[in-house]
């Protein structure tokens, strides 16, 4: 149910321009919100999984495609996470699956970032007719139900990994585009950009040197959140049997557990681990992306209502 990520709120509730106007000129890294434990936990989990994915072949105790034990053998010293319906080692499968899942997540988020970032930049910077046209297109994309559209495209146009990455990418660029457009519209009117224009800087230079660096952090924060959506999407598509049949991913392992009667055999070890991995990575991306966005939206830091009685919270307490 990834239709509405909780961040969508920032566009809705606050007029973004107003929030941005209040933003003091401090870098993302110096903001107190970025040094919260949530951020550090997020980075730690994500980093750990990235390392596992990079060194996957070295870490797998067995060949994930080979039968190395009994069918649905419970966890034992030889197989820490037991075996699946074909007798393959679950731990090796989960490690191998991290690669494809993270590749899909990051590559699709990158596609979404490029499309959404470009649309947002052009729309916000040039305004006028281009803005109207691009935002109209974005509006239409927003109302198309994401999961069914992915299913339809995957069912119609093949099940290769590259296709799936592109499908996910072209579905999740819309919220990025909206967010970046709002930010660009405000940055465009800042004094230094206007000075730049006054001394004759070309539009391309203004965009690359002055606007993009300002919206960059927000773009990255949003992309981190998109990684989570993309990994989700991969598990959905794969679960419905529309994934790349030759590759091992976490979504594929969940599908395998379901189709291979892991439930009938009460083989929880074949079901739980891949889902835990997906949950952890998505949790990490969400926490990291959220705290980055919070750092860029200082309004959220102020709360006038006291948690306990007789105490008024101030900014410094956070």
């Amino acid at each position, binding site marked *: 149910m990834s239709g509405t990520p909780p961040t969508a*709120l920032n566009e809705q*509730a606050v007029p973004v321009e107003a929030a941005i106007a209040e933003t003091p000129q401090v870098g993302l890294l110096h903001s107190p919100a970025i040094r919260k434990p949530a951020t550090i936990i997020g980075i730690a989990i994500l980093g750990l999984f990235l390392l596992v994915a990079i060194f996957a072949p070295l870490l797998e105790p067995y060949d994930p495609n080979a039968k190395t034990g009994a069918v649905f053998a419970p966890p034992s010293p030889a197989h820490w996470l037991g075996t699946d319906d074909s007798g393959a080692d679950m731990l090796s499968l989960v490690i191998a699956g991290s690669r494809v899942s993270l590749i899909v997540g990051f590559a699709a988020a990158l596609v979404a970032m490029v499309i959404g970032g470009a649309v947002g930049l052009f729309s916000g910077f040039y305004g006028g007719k281009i803005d109207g046209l691009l935002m109209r297109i974005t509006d239409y994309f927003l109302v198309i139900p994401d999961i069914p559209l992915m*299913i339809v495209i995957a*069912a*119609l146009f093949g099940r290769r990994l590259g296709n799936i990455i592109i499908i996910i990418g072209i579905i999740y660029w819309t919220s990025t585009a909206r967010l970046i457009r709002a930010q660009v519209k405000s940055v465009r009117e800042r004094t230094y950009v206007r000075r730049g224009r006054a001394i004759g800087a070309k539009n391309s230079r203004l965009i690359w040197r002055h606007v993009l660096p300002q919206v960059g952090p927000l773009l990255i924060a949003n992309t981190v959140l998109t990684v989570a959506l993309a990994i989700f999407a991969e598990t959905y598509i794969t679960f*419905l*049997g529309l994934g790349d049949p030759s590759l091992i991913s976490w979504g594929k392992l969940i599908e395998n557990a379901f189709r291979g009667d892991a439930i009938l055999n009460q083989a929880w070890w074949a079901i739980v681990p891949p889902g835990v991995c997906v949950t952890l990575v998505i949790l990490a991306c969400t926490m990291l992306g959220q705290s980055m966005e919070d750092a860029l939206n200082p309004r959220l830091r102020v*709360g006038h209502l006291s948690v306990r009685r007789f105490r008024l919270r101030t900014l410094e307490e956070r």
Partner: protein
Amino acid sequence: MRANYILKRILFAFVTVLVAITLNFVLFRAVPGDAVSALRCRQCTVHFKEVQRKELGLDEPLIVQYRLYITHLLHGDMGSSLRTEQPVMDELWAPIANTMPMIALGTVFSIIFGTIVGVVSAWRRDTFVDKAGLYTALGFYSMPTQWLGLLMVLFVAGALGLPTSGISNPTLGILTEPSTWAVVVDRLKHMVLPALTLGLVLYGDYALITRSAMLETLGEDYVLTARAKGLKNLQIVRKHGFRNALLPIVTLIALSLGFIIGGAITIEYVFSYPGIGLATVEAIDQRDWPVLQAIFLLLTLSVIFFNLIADLLYVKLDPRVVEA
């Protein structure tokens, strides 16, 4: 002014419907090969194929096909299922009727618990209660729906003695005619687990939305004023905080309602619940494009519908929107 705004939103919804219909037409015509022969329609009779070709106008130019498609749609005709050779709409009524109560149950559960937890979390922020609420919500938000469903089947169903598949007990009516009450209870029992799965995932969404909306509102100056006036905390939260946070909460929930049916696809698959989601999976497995096409159109229409509702609610809740 207001009527003008509402009219504009309705017009936008109408145009969006047209775009959705066109997209639906284009996507399914862009499939490699002929829309009938390329299908896995081995069991189709030759006669049926011929009729289909003629009905879809496949030998005509695209523009004629498009006109035919729209004319059929306006008559409520979405084509025929390739599997059963029956009109698609007849095939889809029963699944839709099965899905609706399940989704309603899950959604109501999630809205109630999500908003309560979100409000309490924002109010008691940075306390243990907030952390507990926030991290459970984040946890459920981060779980793949189908996986949570599998966990339910594995760990919860046995403990609660609930059925894990289908919509009714097949042995119920064999010996004696069951009472209406027994039938209703049986249906509800089959509905609990899918609805709970849906409800928990949505609960995560809604709790997070409510919490951040409340945090925004509690930072407003009027909350400070209310406190300075000496109002009780509960009163501030209810009358000044929640009332104002309601705007984004209601709109975001209304927006998400349209997407819920799409999200229920994997849930129904896990629980073999014969609703619109299971129909989707079957249509994919059988490559039954007309059914898939109709489902996709219905889902898009539901999103557009709830979008319009959200727009209209927005005006109702905050008349200032119109002036902006």
